[in-house]
């Protein structure tokens, strides 16, 4: 699976998990994926360093799609599509 940097992605739901310690942002993403419908695009903003490895690992294991990761100032935006 390759991550393509997409500039325009229609985000279904955005979660601001900045300031949450690990593994909070991942848990927020999992909750949102579970609550969402297939095809939904969930964006998580995380300042937690652990998210850089946690989110890709979980997305791969759970077989969803990691659309893009956008580094910002002091945090990153992870954009995930619920694939199933």
């Amino acid at each position, binding site marked *: *699976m390759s*991550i393509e*940097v997409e500039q325009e992605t229609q985000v279904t739901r955005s979660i601001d998990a900045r300031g949450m*310690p690990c*593994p909070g942002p*991942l*848990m927020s993403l999992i909750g949102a994926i579970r609550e969402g419908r297939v095809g939904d695009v969930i964006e998580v903003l995380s300042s937690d360093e652990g998210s850089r490895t946690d989110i890709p690992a979980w997305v791969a*294991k759970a077989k969803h799609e990691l659309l893009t990761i956008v580094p910002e100032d002091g945090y990153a935006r992870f954009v995930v599509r619920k694939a199933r």
Partner: protein
Amino acid sequence: MATSVVESAQQVIEEEETSEPDGALSIVLFSGTDDRLGAAAVLAAGAAAMGRKVNVFVQYWALVAFLKGWVEQDHGISPDAGPAGRDAFRLLKARGGYQHWSETFRQAKDLGDVRINACALSTDMFGVGIENLDSLVDGIEGVAAFMADATGPVVFI
């Protein structure tokens, strides 16, 4: 900077896609302080999030922490922390976003197959039954039953 975050994510994904399925994670939970209980809870939640079965064997001082009505009390911090560690832990709690270990264990159970059982020897030691334990505890089992389920790695906390 943008490339390295994406590259490291791609590497994690590739490793995950080619890895073998993981066995059950078994945690022998001996410690009764909030820091160690928190560490165990995060491991359980992380394993459950990644689709691994988790068995937690609650014994000794951890059993005391799981007593009904006692869970939310201050269980202190282990001596390992030292003064600086204690301050860091307090700061984390004050910062917001800190989740109590009992909540993390509940989250873990919601995420996957996580069983928390009290050690029969420890329940005898403290003279408690299942009715004295928080609803997080699924039952009481002996060491042989725990070992029978411990088909993967066993960690002692």
